[in-house]
């Protein structure tokens, strides 16, 4: 659909080339304009596959900067899919884009799995497969689903649906639980339906058919709630973008429009409550200095930076936006051996800015941005929802001490 609706809007103005972080970092990539709308015109007649498409990270900066509303990044993902159809996938790419499967297998034995991943022999095998020599995200010993189901929620009339996604589901469940607690405190009951990986990693690794299956599953699980008018929340900005935009760009699945319309980034939902005067704002600033990094997939959502807005509104909170661009990891991209250096080169400005503020904690929604920033700068990282919840708890503690 996206091909017919957007390619002829491209005027070849070069705005996407200017703002493409990959083009800036490597000359191997021919650039979003040429590989997306440019070559797509030829692909309408026959498949014209260009190998450098493999360098595209699907970061969406081309979409954000395009003055003519061309769906550049998704055209590139479709081209990448065609490229892999011909070339065939590496085992490595399959492993990196199926983190959910490994997580579901490993979560029950998280400690062993985490130890195993760091084991020298495992690292050797991973390296031989083409995985970069960097720590893989550790699985949490109690995944989000276990923690959530163990929680006795206060039932409320008002309900929201939470889509955790893989990273919060298995690696950073605390972010999801912090959101659940905040929502409970504000009179919302949380529903977590039976969902699977949103498909971001399979889309950016050229497994479009598999992504369709995931989309179908998730839309089926979410549309029932969307039809009831329940808000659908995500804390992961890539999952959010998938539910709200990419399913619509890529597939024609019944119910996806309704899901997209009910989707909220968790921060966006809380800001909306605040704007309506319905958010309990008894937050107490948390000590320390904080730097906010805007994930590209949040910027692409057309909702501004709600996490930053919430935190900036807490009296005494020392938080500033970094304003230094993409971190470069792009999910699985930065874990690939031959892409690792490019991924670091993309994030160079960001890392420099963070290193210039030693001791500051970096606040950002995206789990893999957090991994990249922590890996390179050694700075502590936190999701804005977790920091907000900490500010809520800190106030509760302060007021109970006062009594």
């Amino acid at each position, binding site marked *: 659909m996206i091909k017919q609706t957007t390619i002829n809007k491209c005027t070849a103005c070069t705005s996407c080339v*200017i703002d493409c972080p990959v083009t800036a970092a490597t*000359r191997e990539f021919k650039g979003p304009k040429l590989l997306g709308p440019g070559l797509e015109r030829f692909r309408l007649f026959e498949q014209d596959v260009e190998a450098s498409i493999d360098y595209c990270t699907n970061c969406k900066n081309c979409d954000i900067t395009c003055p003519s509303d061309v769906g550049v990044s998704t055209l590139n993902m479709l081209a990448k899919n065609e490229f892999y159809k011909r070339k065939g996938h590496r085992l490595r790419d399959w492993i990196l884009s199926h983190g959910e499967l490994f997580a579901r297998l490993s979560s029950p034995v998280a400690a062993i799995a985490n130890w195993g991943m760091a084991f020298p022999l495992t690292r050797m095998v991973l390296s031989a497969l083409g995985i970069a020599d960097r720590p893989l995200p550790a699985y949490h010993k109690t995944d989000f689903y276990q923690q959530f189901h163990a929680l006795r929620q206060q039932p409320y009339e008002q309900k929201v649906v939470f889509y955790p996604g893989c990273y919060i589901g298995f690696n950073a469940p605390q972010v999801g639980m912090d959101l659940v607690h905040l929502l409970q405190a504000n009179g919302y009951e949380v529903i977590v339906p039976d969902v699977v990986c949103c498909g971001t990693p399979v889309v950016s690794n050229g497994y479009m058919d598999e992504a369709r299956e995931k989309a179908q599953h998730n839309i089926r699980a979410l549309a029932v709630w969307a039809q009831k008018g329940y808000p659908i929340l995500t804390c992961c900005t890539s999952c959010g973008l998938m539910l709200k935009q990419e399913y619509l760009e890529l597939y024609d699945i019944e119910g996806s429009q309704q899901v997209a319309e009910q989707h909220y980034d968790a921060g966006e939902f809380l800001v909306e409550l605040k704007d309506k005067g319905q958010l309990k704002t008894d937050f107490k600033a948390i000590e320390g200095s904080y730097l906010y990094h805007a994930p590209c997939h949040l910027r692409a959502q057309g909702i501004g930076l709600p996490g930053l807005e919430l935190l900036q509104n807490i009296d005494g909170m020392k938080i500033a936006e970094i304003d230094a661009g993409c971190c470069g990891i792009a999910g699985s991209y930065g874990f690939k051996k031959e892409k690792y250096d490019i991924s670091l080169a993309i994030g160079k400005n960001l890392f420099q800015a963070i290193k210039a503020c030693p001791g500051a904690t970096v606040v950002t929604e995206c789990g893999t941005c957090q991994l990249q920033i922590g890996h390179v700068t050694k700075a502590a990282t936190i999701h804005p929802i977790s920091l907000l919840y900490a500010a809520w708890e800190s106030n509760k503690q302060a007021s109970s001490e006062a009594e």
Partner: protein
Amino acid sequence: MKKSDVIVIGAGLAGLTAAAAVSLQGHSVTLLAKGAGTLAFGGGTIDVLGCYDGRGLRSPKLGFEALPAHHPYTIAGKQGVIEAMFFFQKLCSEAGYPLEGSLESNVWVPTVAGTFKPSCLVPKTMSAADLAKADHIQLAAFAGLKDFYPSMIVKGFQRVALYAGKAYHTVPVETHLAPGRDITVLDIARWMNTMAGQNNFVSQVKEQIAPGSYLLVPPVLGTEPNYDIWQHLQERLNCRIIEMAAPPPGITGMRLRTLLLHLLKKQKIALIEQAHVSQAEIQSGCCKSVTTKHFGRERTYEGDAFILATGGFLGGGLVAEPLAVKEAIFGLPVASMLAAEQAAGDGLLNAGPVFQSGVNVDEKMRPLDLHGNLVLENVHLAGNILAGYDYCAEKSGNGVAVVTAYRAAMAAVGREQL
């Protein structure tokens, strides 16, 4: 629903400038951006009025008197133009990237097409006022650079009286950039961002040029809005380096955009990217809110005043349909010159009348209908959406953007009488 004092729609030069002006007056701003506008890839020189009636102007001021009543400069008034230019120059200076020039005289910027383009405020790196005095001009020829042909440039210069008798010399430069794709000025500017690139450039050029000479380069002196690289290279090479204007990506526009975006972030304005404004809520001649619709839900942004800086045909502010031109968001009456264009006949450069299509405004930059009646009380227009000027023929695009953005901003915050 989000509320701010002023909502700016559009993030090209007009929108960014208006947002900066409103914010520096202490009012809250939400900037709704759909794409980066044309500033990102353009030349970024502030051309105020370069030509009139097909001839180059020595000074923008000389042309003002002759402009028609509905021209944006006539509406802003001479004082309005002066104030806006003062504001913009101050803003750039304070950000560490002062622009050179004044309304008193145009500067002639050499271009990679071998021509000279009249402009008013330009980066110091492009200021070529003293170039005419040189009897020997050198051109840096980067190997493999796209859209850069030294022999064509020299041929072009020799057609200009002041430059006809000079000696020209090409200085080949090899960047040794990795293969993979075409080499653009953007690639070389990024190479120049690195110390290694600068050192490499100096070592190659040093032996080939005489101290005190003039070296013309494409716009490659880094991507950031400062003069560090330029000064550093000039010192090390002991020569004058002048950047030429180039087709997209023009680099110099990119620098200006970076400067303005950093300023807006510093001012903590709310920048909403991918905000596709689809409609507005109007109550008795006043705009209450605008609504964005792209993927997902509609979102509404409320404001006391609105600045519409959505651009012309390229930016998407104006939409051409068969036999009609429409304004995309408010459905404002467009003074369309389609009939005139048809009369003018074919040919890209004859398309002048169509560039003059746009919305007529009052002195507060508010939209007027075709009979001159005010349409909306609190909506102010800036930039290429305006009727009555032809940026292409006049060389006035960025100048009109800055002047009308400043006027719109001052009117939006109730300070139009300074």
